[in-house]
Every structure is written in C-alpha cells, then in structure tokens.
C-alpha cells in the first residue's frame, strides 16, 4: 500500500488517494491540544512524539493553525515557524497540515488581501496540507488562500462546515461542494468539517454518500470531534460511504472534546473490512507510550468539567471552543448557569441568528451573545461589536435566512434599516502598506525583522513584539520540558533541571535557596552548569516590571530639552548653573556647565524662553536624564 510522502505534488497526492484501497488517517495533534488542553501541548512533547508519529505513516499531522499560532507566541513562547522547522528535522516523511480560517486566517476578524497572501506564502513553505474554512461557508472568503496554496504547489483542502437542522440538507452541501470545486478544480481533498461532532453516524454516512455520488473523484476527508463519545461511529460510516481520510489522535492524550483515538478507529474499521493505508500500528502504540508520562504536567489545562457532552447535539459548541468556554464560565463564576446557557439559550440564539455554523469566529459570537443574554437579563441588550458586524454582513451573507427585524433593531438601534443600508455588506478591506509595517516593526525591535517575524506581527502586533522581546531576554524556551515549563509551586532546593538548549548543548541547573532580605527582595540562587548565578526580584513587583529606575535615552533627553525641560545628557556633576530663575534665554545660550570624565561641557538651551525652575545646584551629581532646570516659552 502506498504511503504519501511529504513533498509530493498535490496532483499526485490526490491521484494516490483516488486509487487507494482503504483509507488514510490524519493525526490531529493540534486539535487535540486545542480541544482538551487549551492549546498548551508544548513543542517539547510533540518533538518527543515526532519520531514515532513519522513512522506511523499518517496522511498528515495537523500541527499548526487554528488558535495555535496565537497561543504559541502568547502562552508557549515558541515561534510557530521554528516549531514546524524543528518538527520537520525529526519528521522527514509526514505532511504537515494547518487549519486556516479563510479571510480570518488564524485570527478572529478579516485581514486585508495582501496580508492573507503574504501569510499563506510564508507558512506554505512548511505546511503541505491547507484545510481552509469559512464559518458562513461563504466560498469567496477562501479564494485568496486557495490561490496562494495552489501557487505554492501545496494541497488545498477546502471545507464544508457541517451542522444539523432542517436547512443542513445534502442538497445544500452538495451545492457548496460544487461552488468550491468550480474555484479550485478537482485536485483537492474536500473536508467535511464536523467541529462539533454533530449528527449521527447515519447522517454523516448519507452526506458522504451524497457527495461521492456527485463527485466520485474528489477524495473526502472527514474531520470530527468526540464530544458526545460517538465520533468513531461517524468515522466508520464516513469510510463505509467512501471517505478517503479521517481524523484521529494519540490515545494517551485523548480527552473528551478532541478527536477519538487512532487505534480505536483502526481496530473498528478492520472489522468492517477497511484497512488503514500505510499505517504502522506499533508506531501508533509507541507514540502514546513515549508521551504518556508527560500528560500529568498538562492537568491544569484540562477541562473544568470531566466527561463526554452528549448535549453538544443541542448547544453545538465546537470541540475547540469547549475548553475555553468552560474556563471562562469557571473564572466568571457562572458554571452553575451553564445548563441554561448551553441547553436553552445557545440553541435559541443559533436559530435566531440564522442557524449558521458554530465555529470560529462565529461560535464566539453565539457564545458571547448567549452568555450576555442569560447573565445580562435583557436579551440582546448588550450586543458585542462582532455581533453588530455579523448583522451588518461584514463576515459575509447569512447562508439560510436573516435574523428577524427586532434583533436588528436591538443591535443596530431604531434606525437600523438606515444603518444597514449605509454600512451593510462585506467591506473591501484596504491592503496594508507592508513596507511601512516592516519599518514600524524594525523600529520596535531595533533590528530588521525577518519575513516570518513580520507575518507574526501582522497577525498579532502587540503579542508578537512581546514575544520577540521575550525570546531576546529568555532565549528559546521550547527546549524546556512541561515538567519545568508548567511547574507549579516552584522547584525544590537541590533539584537538578537538565535540558538541551536550542543549539543542542546540554545544561544542568541546580536549584539553590531563595532568601528574602529585609527590604523584601528575593534572591534566587541557581548553579547554572556549576556556575553560581543569582536572580534578584524586587519586593512585590509584578513579574516583568523589575529593573532599576528609568534612565532616559539621549534622544528622549534632547526631546525634553527642546520642550524646555533641560536634563543632564550624561552622568556627571554640575559645575555651575549659569542662569537665574526669571532670566530670559535664547536657543544656544549656556544655562549650565557640567563635568564628566574630568571634562567640562556647557549645557545649552534648546528652546528660548524664561528660566522658571532650577532643580539642580552646583556640585550635584546627576544621572542621564537628571533634572537641571525648566524653560517656559516666551508669550
């Protein structure tokens, strides 16, 4: 049987799939991490699993995209590009797969076309399979991604998002498939994106069958979640009806909202006479054995509520949003209202808002609206900006029907019809000036950014800059195991922490005592590779804010001087203040003489006016930025 190797042309991949006797499996490690561990599974763990996962012979490893790009830089401090490069070193064969939200890329709002194309081009260097969707199934929202993926020679996997209800008929989905194929051609894999794990096995089987009837030569990739515990059933029916690829994940990390275990799928389908093409079952088992021990360190990120959620068929939240929704409920103290929110309000809101697909960013709009409706008292009384944009059609047209007028009135106001007329419809988003953005980033970083850095900056400007600065200060932290990275309660004195750095060098940190002095400052003592090191922490200062008093830069001092605030430009002593308060000075007049490095230097006025406040006196030692005097402009 033919295994598909990374680097093959899209056309050949699809040809292989068409001829395959059996089905393929995608290991959806990213979706598992997002659904059951709040996206916190570290590259360290994925690298541990890499060798066996590569050997296992998956169609692809879904390891990037979705919310992971943001969480990578924000919470795991790992470069999403570096992650793919490091994994590629250990996984020479397996295709890497991403999940892309069309115009919304890996974020929550539409991006300009040139940003979308630039981002896809950069990621397509490392990503072989592009699963792309739009939460309104609005195909034009995916055009730019399709084109760039095609140009890069990578495999397009457009999605039809799946849900249940009277409107979600086979006819509708077959028509969507037609619309997609008209744009992409047939050398694609078509994904049925069942992010909620909705519907029965029978329903999924019928849908796959309907699609295969019409497009026999387009391989179907079934993606589901095991939220109700029944995704293996749906997978079986998908394959029996002709699906070429299905999603599953490693059992040692399987939870409640992610994909079902690979081995369960394989064993079940075997009974039905279907073989998993190229799969090495021993490697699948070995993967789970290798990483099993790591799961304990991620416990803090597992769901607040344990157990399957068969009521997902009612509330339809996607697996990838379950963890974060429950976390929000726990933090917000409204876990006890969850039954009302999930089982009563959410289905109601869904119907009211057009019964579209509950997936990012649409699922967030539904969830936020339902929570606000329940907790706020007045339904639609406090609409979010995103709900407003949804009603205005900024994300695209409603697929089946428009919400009722009263909702428009609540959200857009009494003159909602005028507002809709004036502001409604998909905006043509103006292209960003990428050269300018690059320059702005260079200013922030102090060095010319790489294309990859610019891509991350365009996705999440503030968080990306924070991340770059973090890396400069703390290095490549992905090398640390979750036992170190997610340690709670601190380390034990005498504990030895071993790791291998980004350059492959082995290191050992021995934890020493952490005495607190009279001023409340803590000194953390480590032996770093047998060298004593001390890290000082100011008393009760928030992390990241420590450090000495602010010292102004030369530019800042000059800026202040030009505004009449004369500061010491260097570290030195005041020899003389040569003016008096109330005296008039012109630009270039000498106002003081300072001495530093045994040299006297005149301090000149950068602004004309009246000397108002002399704060330094002869003999004072000043640091750079120390106040000398003020000049008020002449009126």
């Amino acid at each position, binding site marked *: 049987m033919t295994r598909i190797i990374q680097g093959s042309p899209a056309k050949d991949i699809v040809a292989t799939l068409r001829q395959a006797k059996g089905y393929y499996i995608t290991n959806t490690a990213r979706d598992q991490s997002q659904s059951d561990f709040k996206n*916190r599974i570290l590259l360290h763990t994925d690298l541990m699993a890499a060798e066996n996962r590569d050997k296992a012979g998956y169609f692809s490893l879904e390891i990037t995209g979705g919310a992971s790009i943001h969480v990578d830089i924000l*919470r*795991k*401090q790992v470069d999403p590009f570096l992650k793919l490069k490091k994994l590629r070193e250990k996984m020479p064969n397996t295709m890497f797969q991403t999940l892309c939200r069309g115009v919304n890329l890996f974020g929550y709002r539409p991006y300009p076309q040139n940003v979308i194309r630039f981002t896809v081009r950069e990621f397509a260097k490392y990503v072989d399979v592009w699963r792309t969707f739009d939460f309104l199934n609005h195909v034009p929202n995916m055009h730019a991604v399709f084109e760039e993926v095609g140009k890069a020679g990578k495999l397009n996997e457009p999605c039809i998002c799946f849900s249940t209800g009277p409107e979600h008929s086979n006819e509708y989905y077959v028509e969507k498939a037609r619309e997609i194929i008209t744009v992409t051609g047939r050398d694609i894999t078509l994904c049925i994106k069942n992010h909620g794990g909705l519907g029965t096995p029978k329903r999924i089987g019928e849908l796959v069958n309907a699609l295969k009837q019409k497009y026999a030569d387009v391989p179907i990739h079934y993606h589901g979640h095991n939220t109700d515990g029944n995704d293996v059933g749906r997978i079986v029916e998908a394959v029996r009806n002709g699906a070429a690829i299905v999603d599953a994940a490693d059992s040692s990390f399987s939870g409640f909202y992610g994909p079902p275990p690979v081995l369960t799928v394989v064993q079940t389908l075997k009974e039905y006479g279907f073989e998993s093409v190229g799969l090495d079952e021993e490697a699948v088992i070995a993967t789970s054995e290798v990483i099993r021990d790591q799961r304990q360190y991620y416990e803090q990120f597992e769901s607040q509520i344990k157990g399957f959620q068969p009521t997902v068929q009612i509330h339809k939240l996607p697996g990838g949003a379950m963890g974060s929704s429950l976390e929000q409920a726990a933090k917000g103290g409204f876990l006890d209202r969850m039954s009302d929110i999930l089982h009563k309000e959410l289905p109601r809101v869904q119907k009211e808002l057009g019964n579209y697909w509950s997936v990012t960013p649409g699922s967030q709009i539904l969830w936020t609206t339902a929570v606000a409706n329940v907790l706020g008292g007045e339904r639609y009384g406090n609409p979010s900006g995103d709900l407003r944009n949804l009603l205005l059609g900024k994300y695209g047209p409603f697929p089946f029907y428009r919400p009722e007028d009263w909702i428009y009135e609540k959200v857009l106001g009494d003159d909602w019809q005028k507002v809709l007329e004036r502001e409604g419809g998909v905006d043509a988003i103006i292209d960003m000036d990428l050269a300018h953005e690059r320059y702005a980033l260079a200013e922030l970083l102090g060095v010319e950014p790489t294309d990859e850095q610019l891509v991350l900056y365009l996705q999440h400007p503030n968080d990306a800059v924070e991340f770059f600065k*973090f890396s*400069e*200060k*703390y*290095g*490549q*932290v992905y*090398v*640390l195991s979750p036992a*170190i*990275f*997610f*340690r*709670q*309660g*601190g*380390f034990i004195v005498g504990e030895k*922490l071993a*790791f291998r*750095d*980004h*350059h492959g*060098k082995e*290191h050992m*940190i021995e*934890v020493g005592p*952490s005495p607190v002095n009279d001023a409340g400052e*803590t*000194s*953390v003592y*480590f032996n*770093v*590779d047998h*060298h*004593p*090191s*001390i*890290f000082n*922490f100011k008393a009760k200062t928030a*992390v*990241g804010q420590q450090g000495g008093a602010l*010292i102004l830069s030369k530019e800042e001092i000059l800026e202040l001087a030009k505004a009449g605030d004369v500061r010491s430009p*260097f*570290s030195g002593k005041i*020899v003389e203040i040569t003016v008096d308060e109330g005296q008039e000075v012109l630009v270039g007049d000498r106002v003081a*003489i300072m*001495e530093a*490095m*045994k*040299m*006297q230097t*005149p301090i000149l006025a950068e602004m004309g006016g009246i000397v108002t406040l002399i704060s330094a006196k002869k003999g004072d030692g000043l*640091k*750079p930025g120390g106040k000398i005097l003020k000049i008020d402009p002449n009126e």
Partner: protein
Amino acid sequence: MKKKILVANRGEIAIRLTRAIQELGCEAVAVYETPDEMSRHIRIADEAILLGDGPRCDYLNIEKIIRAAKKSGACAIHPGYGFLAENPFFAKACENNGIIFIGPTADIILNLGNKVIARNIMAEAGIPMVPGTQNLKQGRIGVAEALSFAAKYGYPTMLKATSGGGGRGIRRIESDAEMKEMIPVARAEALAAFNDDSVFLEKVVINPKHVEVQILADSHGNTLHLGTRDCSIQRRNQKLIEIAPSMIKNRPLLDEICNTAVKAAKAANYLNAGTVEFLIDKDQNYYFMEINTRVQVEHTVTEMITGIDIVRNQINIAFGKPLSFTQKDVQIRGHAIEVRINAEDPKNDFMPEGGKKVSVYRSTGGFGVRLDGFVYQGYVIPEVYDSLLVKLTVHGFTWEETVERLKRCLHNFAIRGPKTTIPFYVNIANEKDFVTGNFDTSYIETHPHIFHYDEDASEVGKLARFISQIHYSRENPFSK
C-alpha cells in the same frame, strides 16, 4: 626595627605598593577614609590609620597624611597614582618634614607637570615634538594667538591645560568659533582642576598610536628604559587596554623611541620611575607628548615582559640605592596585555555601578596570569571612588598566545551584582583588528560593534533567567 613606609593611596595600587614594601622587609602603613573601612588594602597592611570621613578629600589632604606618617613613624611615603602622586607641594611637604617621597623631586614634578616648561626643556634637548604654542596670553590677545596658530596648522587642534595630565584638561577644537567659545571654558576648567588657568595649543596628530616608554633613573646618574607600552585603545583619552611591548613591527624605530625617552629623562634631570609618552603618526613620525612622574596604572605589563619589579626599584631609588642592573640586563620577553575590569556599564557611557554589591566573585588564575585587585565576594562598589575592581594582566610567549590567554581569563571570571567591562573586553579580544595588532587611538570609535553584547549572552543564562521566574512566581507567569 623594621622601616615603615606609608602608602598614601587606596584600592588596588595600595595593595600593589604594600606587597613591594613587605617584600623589602619593611612594614606598610595604610591610610583610609571612612567609606573605605571595609577596603582590602587596610587588612593587608601592617597598620592602618583613619584620615577622616572623606570622601576623597582626606586622601588629598597633605597635612593629614604627613601627620599620619609622623604618628606611625614612617620614614617614607609612596603616593601611588592619582590623588597626590603628581602634586609638587606634597613632595615638598615630605621633604620639609624629613620624610622620603618615593618619586621625583618637587622641582621635577613642577617642571614636567607644566606642559609648556616641559616642552621647552624637550625642545632644547632636540626631542621631536608636535608643533604647539607657548601659554596663551590672557584675554583677546591669547585668542588671537590661538587663531593664528590654527590658521598655520589647520583644524582640528588640541587645546590643553598646561598643568593637566593623565588625559585631563584636553579638548579637541574644530573651528574658529569653537576656539573662541572654548578657551574661557578650558581656562575655568583648568583653574578648578589644577589651580592654574594656563592653556596652550598643539597641532592634532590624526589617529596616532599612543606609545610610551617606562624609565627608571637613580640618584647615581643611571637612567635606563624598560621598553615600550602601547596604550592606543582609549576612550576620551582614558586608557582601557595596555600592551607591552608596542606592536609596531619597525624595531629600529622602537629602539630610537626608547633612546629618545632616555635622552628626554636625562634632559629633565629625571629621578625615580617615570613614563615618557609619544604619539606616532601613520608615517611613523613620533612626537614627544609628556612625562608622567609617577608609577602608571599599566606598569604591570612592563613588569611582566621584563621581570623587573618597578615599585621595588622605586623604593630602592628613593632610599638612594643605585640600580642593580644595566640597560643590557633589560630583556624583553613575550607580550603582556592589561585590562582594567571596572564595575561600569560600557553600553551606558561607562556609567559606574556604584552602590551595587558583588554577590558572586570568582576570578581566574594559572600560567601567565596576574591579578591586581581588591574586590571580594560581598564587596559593595563605592559610590565615591573609582569603580576599578581588578586589573587583569596576562603574559604570553607570543602575541597570539597572549590574546588567547586573555580570552580564557575573561571567560573564567564570574562577577555577579554590578555590570562590568568584561563582556566589552571579550568583544575586543575577539575583534579582528585587535587580534592582528592593528589599532590606534581611533579604535573605539571606529569599532562601534564592540559595544554589542548581551550580559547574559549565553543561551543557558537566558533560560536560567526564565526558570528563575517560574521558580519565584511558583508558576509560569507567561503561560496563564
């Protein structure tokens, strides 16, 4: 009874002098100001006398030091460098009180300390010199003199305080306007610093090498040299790295410079240890600059390559003994480099790290390594004195070996608490022009990238910093 010698200084040089005194079988008397009461030089000395609360003023107080010498029964005083070392009134006060001043006589210090007199002495002896003026006359006439000198020799030109020295009181003038502006400033500065507002001009030698010759002269008419040092690596006329011997390949030129230095010393009737400084331009012309009438900070490099203890000889000369060796006995062997490891932040204009505690101090050692320091673990960098922690001098048979040893030693140091100049020196030690011996006084400004380093440059240092955050916060504060 053992002879007692008072050390009128602090810090590393006080320790250096104390060691030589004790090796000669004498007792060393330390003096100190209150802020220095934890200083190591006191503990190494045989006795110590508190001068006062300072700071700095008591080390400069001639009367108090003479009194301390008398009280302790010291028969001689070694002034070291800085403070009173080149103060002719101090030398005179010692003489008047029957105390031996370890250094030249007050007259010599006075003459050589006055740059214009010194220039006249050297001109008479036929020593090559940078064109310059006499003392500028006061007021407008002086300015006119300055402008006509500049018209003849062009800008830039150096405006120097006649009584300045050691890089003090020198400024570069680029234009007539600046000349007019700066002469009064320089006068005021000179008056404040040296109690003499005389200034003069010298033509600027563009990007010269700074080469100096160590001289020893006894009271029996023997004057000899201990070879050259190159102190070209400077920042604003302050030396950072010193090398012996000079890296100039032209041996006959260096020999000529050494002989000229001896001639200059003789012309000044020089006595004791001194340094004759020269500038060497691109065409290998050399010019006399000045004679420093003290032991220099960088004397260690000369000691390493000659094996001659300069401080020991200073004391013997002061006690009237003849030099125990001749010029022929002085052999230069290998190369030596000295770096001044200061508690300063080179990136922030070398701002001193006063007030910080040295929480970890681990130094280096081994073959060809010399440390002159007084820092120790737990030491708090004083805010009122200079920030020199330790002088590292390395000696090697070849230049390459010496540079490699320097790198190794810098790497061996572990100093935590204050920022230091170590990473800055590491960058220099790895810099191509330095490694090939190709540098002049423009080195620092023409190699700005030597300022690019990260204090915790090592990846593991950064990771350790991150892990300390997880430890201190009792959870990963970046992953909430």
